[in-house]
């Protein structure tokens, strides 16, 4: 990911043009400041995974897969299941991505996506317990980024959310001897809400949603806010070496909810299509 910035050095020349456009409420690709790009969400694209989703947000394309196994809870949370979110920007996704262990950008990406899901309480991890302190479900949501064109935070988050919403896990019974035994029955994850991430870029004095790589190359700062379906804000992260004004923070907190509802509707629609019932 580290080169998303570098890629567009020449395009810094577009900054003047972009600022002037933004002053007229427009963007290079014709969107207005608060328009998202076309979003397509397709679930169950990797049949071997317990849940999966491919998300295309403009030209950005990611795929999330959920694998579920049994594990041992952490000693300090014996009554909670495990939920781990990871992300890799595959080297095939961009001329600037490189193979190797995750760099600070990939780590931030995975941690911010994880935080939105975890802090919203989307998955009731207390219901992922088969036997306190011994046997819990371990839910691994992994994301492979296939094509980078900006706003990895949101596209990755949507893919993980959609994959989790359509995940089916085997039901286990605890045998008389205390061992978990897999049954034939498949059950959904214990979902409580659908958190939606909205990422905004600050360019000059303007706040725009869903930035492309071109826009990210000239942005001053980035802010991601996640809201749940009750309208609470449940996670946030400012990034990049610029600042935001106080008003911009408060404005962002409004935008995240209105845009969040739009996106939630799109995801819910795909999930209904896939599993045949409205969640929640």
């Amino acid at each position, binding site marked *: 990911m580290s080169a998303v910035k570098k890629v567009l050095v020449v395009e810094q020349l577009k900054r003047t043009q972009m600022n002037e456009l933004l002053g007229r409420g427009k963007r290079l690709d014709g969107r207005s400041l608060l328009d998202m790009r076309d979003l397509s969400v*397709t679930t169950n*694209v*990797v*049949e*071997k*995974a317990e849940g*999966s989703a491919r998300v295309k947000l403009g*030209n950005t*394309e990611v*795929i*999330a*897969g*959920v*694998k579920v*196994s049994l594990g041992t809870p952490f000693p300090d949370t014996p009554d909670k299941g495990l939920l781990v979110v*990871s992300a*890799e920007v*595959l*080297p*095939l*996704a*961009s*001329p600037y991505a490189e*193979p190797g*262990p995750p760099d600070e950008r990939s780590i931030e990406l995975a941690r911010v996506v994880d935080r939105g899901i975890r802090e919203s309480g989307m998955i009731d991890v207390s219901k992922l317990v088969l036997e306190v302190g011994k046997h819990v479900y371990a839910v*691994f949501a*992994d994301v*492979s980024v*296939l*094509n*980078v*064109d900006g706003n990895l935070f949101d596209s990755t988050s949507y893919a993980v959310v959609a994959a989790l919403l359509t995940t089916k896990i085997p039901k286990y019974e605890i045998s008389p001897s205390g061992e978990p035994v897999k049954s034939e029955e498949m059950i959904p994850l214990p979902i409580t809400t659908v958190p939606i991430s909205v990422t905004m870029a600050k360019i000059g004095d303007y706040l725009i949603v869903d930035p492309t790589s071109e826009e990210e190359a000239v942005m001053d700062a980035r802010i991601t806010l996640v809201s749940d379906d009750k309208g609470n804000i449940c996670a946030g992260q400012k990034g990049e070496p610029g600042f935001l004004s106080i008003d911009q923070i408060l404005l962002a907190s409004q935008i995240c909810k209105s845009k969040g509802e739009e996106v939630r509707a799109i995801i819910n629609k795909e999930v209904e299509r896939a599993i045949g019932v409205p969640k929640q």
Partner: protein
Amino acid sequence: MGKQGGDSTSLINSQGLRLDGRRFDELRPVSIEVGVLKNADGSAYIQFGKNKIMAAVYGPKEVHPKHSALADRSLLRCRYHMSPFSTEERKNPAPSRREIEISKVIREALEPALILEDYPRTAIDVFVEVLQSDGGSRCAGINAASVALADAGINMRDLVCACAAGKIAGQIVLDIDDTEDKEGQADLPIAIMPTSNRVTLFQLDGQLSNEEFSKAFNLALEGCKSLYQMQREALIRKYFGKDGNEAGEQ
């Protein structure tokens, strides 16, 4: 390979059909789409049985670090990688020894077909990402990578097409899948340059008599020829065909 092969006869039923209904010389369903990724210089997506594999090519491009550049030709690099969710049990995303070996043999399978001398002091990167794995992912990956190299406009002597034959339930069959690989007796993946019959990948896991070896090898060659047709059709669809605009959709 399950050497004992105890009840592996059930891999072929009394009608001579395999678990998924294929005859001994039948390939799994294959589809190839070209040019599916926006950023890559060339790309292809292959579904080969349950394998779902994305291949992308970047290059010819500058080499970093510079001292690894070659004076007389392009440096070909290859990474075969499995996404964590691609396997039955979640796979650790760090490259395994298996992935490192397969990356090497895929690179060496593609290299004879590339005119690397046309691009001195550059690098060409080939990435093969397995999104869902089934038996035969290395062959599927080579088929996709070869098409992606063509899509990237790299000068090539020929395409490279790959297919395996194997032995299950005592019989030589084409293109074994995951179950057949685990319960079967041998797997023989090969890759060829189809217009010259040059063999660029050859591996064998499992036991074959001399006679079985020839039979399996020849059957795999036939499989490669079938793949060659599908590769050509996929490229034609992209560059000349009506279906080209669906590339990237499943």
